[in-house]
């Protein structure tokens, strides 16, 4: 049911600068696109490609200065937006064009109830007030799938889960049935299963109202599953545009080709090359019945509730092997990493590293263990002290473990390590902020290698990176494993990534291991329902879906998207 009509929005030759010291920085360079009624246009690009700036300009959300709209026109339904006076322009926002954002917790006002924030849309446009506005807000909450809207309407944003907050943002956006909904990375911070529900909701609402949808994303799967047409942006310019299926199956621009080939979902046959070729028979790490319990503080008189972040987990890592631990947020996968590195203590269980229990270690044995096991963290910027040079970051293990390397050899060894991870030796005197995300992760890997470890725990090590960079870092890790005989525990929420890289996979849910198996088997024939769900939640290209297919999981899934009773980093 598509009524693809004339363009409702036509952006032509848009050029936006951000003014800074002396030279203006060009964020968007001569960008033109249009979107038709009822159509979904996806703007695809990596971070810094200018994809958000162009739509923010349409919404008049760029502050000038420091922003500076150099040239271009935005023709909305026959009206040039830049010529409207402030009040007329304001009246278009929310009523005719609406927008939702990536991080709904930050984008919802923390001190007002969600009901009040939805009602505000009606009040601002003189549509309804008081009781009527409240009743309509309640209807909206019901429509977007918030359970018990009668009571939840008076809750504050922090009392909802991430997925629910995004539903509330959507409710706010569709309150006045806009002609265009702009969604800026609406599912990026969400788990795959929640992401699937939100995308379904957007699709349904589009079908109901016939609005045009502009979806901004860096995620190829999301793009493919939603787009009628795609524009690909890189470095502020539109590099490719066309019907979705065409762009994906026959990318023309070099950038798009690279993006699509870098996608971990690409070719499974090629991907398996990155798996280990020789796995030793010797067991390096053996984890037995590992459990981590937290006491939840509830009311003063209620008995203490207990929460098991990690519940009786056992597994093994052999020398030279890569074990992938997969789970959504709150599954306990990061708690395992923190316990294995002795950053937090387990409630019970054992972890035998080369036969010795990690949790019993102390003094010299512990220091020796800390040399042999290293960690690479999710956020390469956060895991390095911003005030230290790359040289002192990489040589820190030697400063802590005095017997690894005499001080006069540090400089030389830092240069070697930098070359090993594909950086230049003269990078050693720079600071972390002078590097890009991918480069920083290379530095983090160099630091991990400095103490000549046997096992490296990667906690979401590539999740914060753009796809093309992800592939490079995975290549590097795979290469190092072959050359140095390392073992990895690779923790991630992203199934396609482990598919390429891990030899064996552990799937976790709510602290428990629900499935374990070698990678090929697990992907071919997942046994556990949860694993199947995860695999299915990865969005499928829109052109492969039949037109009337019901929403993937149905309304009952709303209940799985419950508010969090406490926040636990998974």
């Amino acid at each position, binding site marked *: 049911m598509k009524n693809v009509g004339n363009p409702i929005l036509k952006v032509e030759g848009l050029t936006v600068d951000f003014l800074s010291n002396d030279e203006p920085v060009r964020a968007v360079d001569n960008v033109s696109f249009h979107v038709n009624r009822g159509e979904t246009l996806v703007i695809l690009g990596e971070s810094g490609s200018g994809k958000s700036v162009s739509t923010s300009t349409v*919404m*008049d*959300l760029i502050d000038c200065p420091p922003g500076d709209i150099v040239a271009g026109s935005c023709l909305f339904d026959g009206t040039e937006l830049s010529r409207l006076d*402030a009040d007329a322009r*304001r*009246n*278009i*926002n*929310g*009523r005719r064009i*609406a*927008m939702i*954002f990536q*991080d709904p917790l*930050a*984008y*919802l*006002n*923390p*001190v*007002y109830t969600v009901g009040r924030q939805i009602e*505000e*849309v009606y009040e*601002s*446009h003189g549509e309804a007030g008081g009781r009527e506005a409240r009743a309509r807000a309640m209807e909206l909450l019901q429509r977007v799938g918030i359970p018990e809207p009668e009571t939840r309407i008076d809750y*504050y944003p*922090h009392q909802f889960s991430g997925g629910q907050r995004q539903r509330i*943002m959507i409710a*706010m*956006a569709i309150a006045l049935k806009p002609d265009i909904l702009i969604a800026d990375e609406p599912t990026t911070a969400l788990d795959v299963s929640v992401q699937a529900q939100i995308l379904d909701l957007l699709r349904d609402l589009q079908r109901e109202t016939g609005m045009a949808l502009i979806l901004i994303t860096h995620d190829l799967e999301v793009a493919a599953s939603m787009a009628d047409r795609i524009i690909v942006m890189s470095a502020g310019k539109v590099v490719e545009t066309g019907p979705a299926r065409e762009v994906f199956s026959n990318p023309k621009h070099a950038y798009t080709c690279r993006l699509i080939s870098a996608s971990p979902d690409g070719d499974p046959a090629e991907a398996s090359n990155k798996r280990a070729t020789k796995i030793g028979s010797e067991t390096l790490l053996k984890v037995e019945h590992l459990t981590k319990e937290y006491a939840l503080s509830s009311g*003063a008189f209620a008995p203490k509730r207990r929460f098991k972040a990690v519940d009786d987990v056992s597994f093994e890592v052999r020398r030279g092997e890569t074990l992938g631990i997969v789970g959504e947020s709150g599954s306990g996968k990061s708690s395992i990493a923190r316990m294995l590195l002795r950053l937090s203590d387990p409630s019970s269980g054992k972890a035998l590293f080369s036969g010795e229990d990690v949790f019993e270690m102390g003094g010299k044995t512990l220091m020796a263990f800390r040399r042999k096991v290293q960690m690479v963290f999710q956020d390469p910027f956060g895991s390095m002290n911003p005030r230290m040079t790359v040289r002192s970051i990489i040589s820190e293990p030697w400063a802590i473990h005095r017997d690894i390397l005499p001080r006069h050899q540090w400089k030389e060894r830092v240069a070697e390590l930098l070359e090993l991870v594909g950086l230049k030796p003269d990078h050693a005197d720079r600071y972390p902020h002078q590097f890009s995300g991918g480069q920083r992760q290379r530095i983090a890997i160099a630091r991990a290698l400095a103490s000549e470890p046997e096992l490296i725990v990667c906690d979401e090590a590539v999740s914060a990176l753009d796809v093309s960079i992800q592939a490079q870092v995975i290549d590097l890790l795979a290469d190092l494993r072959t050359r140095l005989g390392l073992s990895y525990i690779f923790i991630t929420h992203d199934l396609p990534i482990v598919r390429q890289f891990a030899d064996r996979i552990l799937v976790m849910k709510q602290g428990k291991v629900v499935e374990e198996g070698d990678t090929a088997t697990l992907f071919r024939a997942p046994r556990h329902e949860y694993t199947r769900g995860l695999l299915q939640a990865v969005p499928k290209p829109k052109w492969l879906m039949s037109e009337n297919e019901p929403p993937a999981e149905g309304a009952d899934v709303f209940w799985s998207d419950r508010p969090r009773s406490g926040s636990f980093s998974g």
Partner: protein
Amino acid sequence: MFSYIGRRASHSILSVIGLLTLVFFLTRLTGDPSALYLPLDATAEARAAFASLNGLDQPVHWQFAEYLKDLLQLDFGQSLRQNRSAMEVALQAFPETLKLALVAITLSTALAILVGSLAAARAGSLFDRIAGVASLAGASAPDFWVAIVGILVFAVGLELLPTSGTGTWAHWIMPIFVLTLRPFGLLVQVVRGAMLSALASPYIKTARAKGVRRTKIIFGHALRNSLLPIVTVAGDLATSLVNGAVVVETIFGWPGIGKLMIDAIIQRDFAVVQSTILVTATAIFILNIAVDLLYAFLDPRIRY
């Protein structure tokens, strides 16, 4: 929440006891009050009688034990100078200070919110710059100097206002102005800073995308979220007003707690010093609790 208040109260009582102990021994170090209260040619017998009457002939730790015992019976001792209950003296002076402090903090907060949020909404404008310099000047001016210059101009020069004392509304103008100036200057800075960061927050973008009116964005969304830092600083300033009106009270001859304190110290009127400390400490404790409760009221994410 009640358990929170209870916990705070018990902490504070401990702190007050510690404070009173400190003050007790410190004041005993200053010397013998009988030197001040008896004529120079008083006989040794007269001195001994004065000392034993006031318990000053006992060893200091004994005096302290007596003092604690009296405290438990809510007996705060006698003022040597005024010959009546020390607590009565302190409680008589306290409302005078409270009146000044309340008017000053209310006035400065209200004005600062107005000026500060308008300055932030028009950041970089002429108004913003003038408000910036003026508020910084207000925050930088030493109160005793402003008071003196005020007296110089309005009392000595123009003869419009009285130099000191209480009574008519004209007596209020200069003390209030001096007490308002610095809190106003500091608060304008705080309001402006908090508003600027609030206006740059993501939820303001949402409001703009919803088409909310600009005045409502500024006062409804940004200001509402800026109240927390404003309340924090205003609370601190109120604390310093309760205990810091010493200078203003001394200059303008205002019979408040600060002036009482300074006089009592100089005259070694120990019981009054201790009662004054007790009264101000209690007032500050109540103020702190009030600020904490206000936090929870202003930010639904804060629960005790």
